[in-house]
């Protein structure tokens, strides 16, 4: 299927641009503080002033981008509210806690990121390092909260994977007893619902996502029960009594009860793809930061060949080589395994059209068996198919990532083993490639979730605003954000690369 053919194409692109600019910048807040703090610890141990200079330069880097990154985060937040208000409402209603806790993470980030930069000569060194560690904690805490929500959107807690013919995927719901008494259980079971068990106040069911999707759509479009798919699943008595009740009232009751039973504070962290997702995202930030610092010091050493630039280059190179290896072999692998298990439509779209030996490698990496049985794209019902562009995006990402990793390892070999001094302005391309890989990773993750906005629960059309901007407005806003990014890039070049370098 064509990516553009899913609903709200223009607003999806606009969201992608806004969020990508935010992500592009904030990766430096995930990675550079770590590099700066480690450099400062080395300075404290060795008293070599070059390490202090490196630490301060890296700190200036992330403080400069932080304000605009945070502003773009605010823009992304409001963008979600304005373009996808029903998604935002659902998130606020049912899985609010990580967003709520992210406020504290954000506050922690702002306070300690700025304190790290402004308090350099105003705090003892050890206290300053603790401030740096708190800045890192704030940034990673923030990433963890947001990634838990995103993970829930990829694979919600309680999602059950199985045979499409039997109504899978299904969502585990804790239906309150008073609602159960109004339901025609036989009709629901005929439609694919399974009863999984009971608690004191609820019946636990696995409801086909096709039904969940329709109920959610009916609820957020303001329908009453008589006009909803729900009507057909009520007892005769309930049909009479509840016909004029808004569907949202019923949906809220079921979802609130489900969330309470899974855990109000923990539900998003129980998403089966959460751990892999958060590690992969944080490591992406570290990798991009390391390659950017590497390019900065390579360029600086090439132009002026100062000792501090040479030391900064070696430090960044070591960081970059370790980060990309960990990203590829550990966190990236875990992410791939999680996708194959929990997002099999996405996995199928990635494999669609791949040569057999590539498929075998992928299957071996995902399941430990090159001949493992997997769901092919053609087996997926039309209503659940993600776009086939995933295949291209994914392999482009993997190809670039392998090339970047090989480059880092070759550079590390030349510099650390052969003791060569290689500084080239061409290394400025490395952070660009790292950013492109990171962007493609997100593209595969987000585009691969289509046709869903929250997998198994809410589709794109339901999430979308009833008053979207026209194409020209959306295009102008996108250009505006891109222009701001270019201006910020120029500022970084002018005040950091040219001056500090």
């Amino acid at each position: 299927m064509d990516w553009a053919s899913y609903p709200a194409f223009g607003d999806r692109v606009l969201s992608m641009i806004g969020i990508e600019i935010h992500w592009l910048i904030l990766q430096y807040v995930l990675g550079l503080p770590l590099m700066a703090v480690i450099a400062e610890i080395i300075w404290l141990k060795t008293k070599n002033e070059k390490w202090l200079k490196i630490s301060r330069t890296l700190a200036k880097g992330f403080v400069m981008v932080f304000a605009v990154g945070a502003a773009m985060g605010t823009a992304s937040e409001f963008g979600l509210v304005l373009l996808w208000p029903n998604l935002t409402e659902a998130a606020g209603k049912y899985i609010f806690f990580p967003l709520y806790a992210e406020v504290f993470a954000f506050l922690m980030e702002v306070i300690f990121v700025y304190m790290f930069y402004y308090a350099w000569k105003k705090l003892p060194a050890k206290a300053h390092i603790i401030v740096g560690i708190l800045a890192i904690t704030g940034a990673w805490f923030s990433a963890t909260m947001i990634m838990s929500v995103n993970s829930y959107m990829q694979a919600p807690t309680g999602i059950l994977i199985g045979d499409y013919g039997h109504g899978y995927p299904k969502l585990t719901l804790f239906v309150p007893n008073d609602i159960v008494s109004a339901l025609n259980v036989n009709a629901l079971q005929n439609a694919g619902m399974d009863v999984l068990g009971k608690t004191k106040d609820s019946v636990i069911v696995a409801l086909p996502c096709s039904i969940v999707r329709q109920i959610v759509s009916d609820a957020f479009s303001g329908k009453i029960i008589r006009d909803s798919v729900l009507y057909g699943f009520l007892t005769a008595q309930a049909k009479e009594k509840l016909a004029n009740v808004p569907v949202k009232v019923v949906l809220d009751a079921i979802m609130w009860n489900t969330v309470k039973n899974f855990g109000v504070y923990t539900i998003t962290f129980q998403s089966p793809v959460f751990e892999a997702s958060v590690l992969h995202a944080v490591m992406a930030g570290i990798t991009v930061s390391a390659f950017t610092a590497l390019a900065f010091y390579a360029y600086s050493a090439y132009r002026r060949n100062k000792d501090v630039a040479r030391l900064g280059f070696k430090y960044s190179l070591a960081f970059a080589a370790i980060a990309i290896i960990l990203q590829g072999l550990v966190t990236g692998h875990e992410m791939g395994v999680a996708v194959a298990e929990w997002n099999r439509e996405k996995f199928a779209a990635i494999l669609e059209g791949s040569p057999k030996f590539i498929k075998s490698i992928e299957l071996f990496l995902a399941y430990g068996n090159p001949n493992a049985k997997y769901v092919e794209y053609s087996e997926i019902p039309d209503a659940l198919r993600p776009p086939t562009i995933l295949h291209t995006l994914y392999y482009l990402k993997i190809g670039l990532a392998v090339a970047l990793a090989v480059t880092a390892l070759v550079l590390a070999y030349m510099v650390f083993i052969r003791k060569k001094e290689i500084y080239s302005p061409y290394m400025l391309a490395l952070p660009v490639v790292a950013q492109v890989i990171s962007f493609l990773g997100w593209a595969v993750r987000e585009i691969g979730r289509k046709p869903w906005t929250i997998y198994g629960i809410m589709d794109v059309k339901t999430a979308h605003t009833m008053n979207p901007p026209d194409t020209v407005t959306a295009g102008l806003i996108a250009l505006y954000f891109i222009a701001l990014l270019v201006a910020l890039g120029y500022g970084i070049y002018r005040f950091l690369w040219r001056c500090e370098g």
Partner: protein
Amino acid sequence: MILEFLAVTLGLHVMLVNLGIGLSAVIPFMKRRGEREGNEYLVKTSRNLMRFYASAYALAGVFGTAFTVFLLSYYPAFIGLAGNLMFVPFGLSILLIALHFLSLTLYWYGWDKFKQETHFAIGLVMMSSAILIPLGFRAVFGFLNVPMGLEFQPKPHLNILKALTNPTFLALYPKSILASLSVTFLVLASVFAYKYTKGDERSYRLTERFAKLGLLALTLTAVLGIAYAETLNLYANYKFSNAFGSLLGIKAEYDLSLILAIKMMLIAIQFAALGIFLLRKNFRALIPAGFLALAGVFLGEMLNAFSQYPYLIAEVSVIPENVRVALADVINLAKPNPLTTMESLYLLTMAFLIPLLISSVLLVYLVVKPEST
């Protein structure tokens, strides 16, 4: 506790934003004047103010985000409703926020690196964007007073032209900007008066200048405040009654007139402090005025946000009956998201918020503290 958390975050946000708007206007002009007159003291002072402003505005942004996320968690259906209707006013503010933070970054890190004219031009962008950001947000507040421009055919949407002619918005926006300037001038006058009493002779002229500007801005704010109150009286009487209540002998559903009385008392003290300083050159009298101005802004915002309690929209009579019934729970502050009414959430919020608020004070202290050599 929900309303208290909303009040704290909104109040801190508005206090810091008020200072931010004022400083974004003061700093470029102070620096420019220093450069033209060859006055190093003015240039250095503007730089010190900029250092404070950069960190304070970041904190203002966080508290603003905290307020919206708290609102989303406690009243998600209301945010969903606002998201469907408010693309233009919120969108406008977002675009300006992004521009403001970029210009702030370029202005701060480009200090001494741009040509003076270019740097001043960036400063003007910083000032203009700061002044224009509240335009969209205040338009939303105007809508929450009286939902003018809300139309239902062919689907529910906001008629922007009608929304912008909302009289409560037309009074509220200029009042807010003037209040920002007034608060900033008074805070600066207090700071320089304090420095003067500590022996810094160079602060004399700045104290005098900011006191005079403060008096002018405070007087204009008071006039516009009366105009805003009158628009509420005419168009959102429920809110007006709650705000003025027993102060005017009006029957109020939720009488918040005590807050108004305290705010008016604070304004009177500010006028008195300015008068004593300008007539008798008593610097000590001016020192508390800045703090009182900030407290006044905090109280004013509380009054504006909560005098329509328990409703999020004050004047619902302009909404058709059937829609009003459907929205009854959505716009009701007394009916929060049931998942957010747990004691443990409030304890958790305080456990995070209190140390972080203390840390933010420490941040401001460290930013303004001179470097040790």
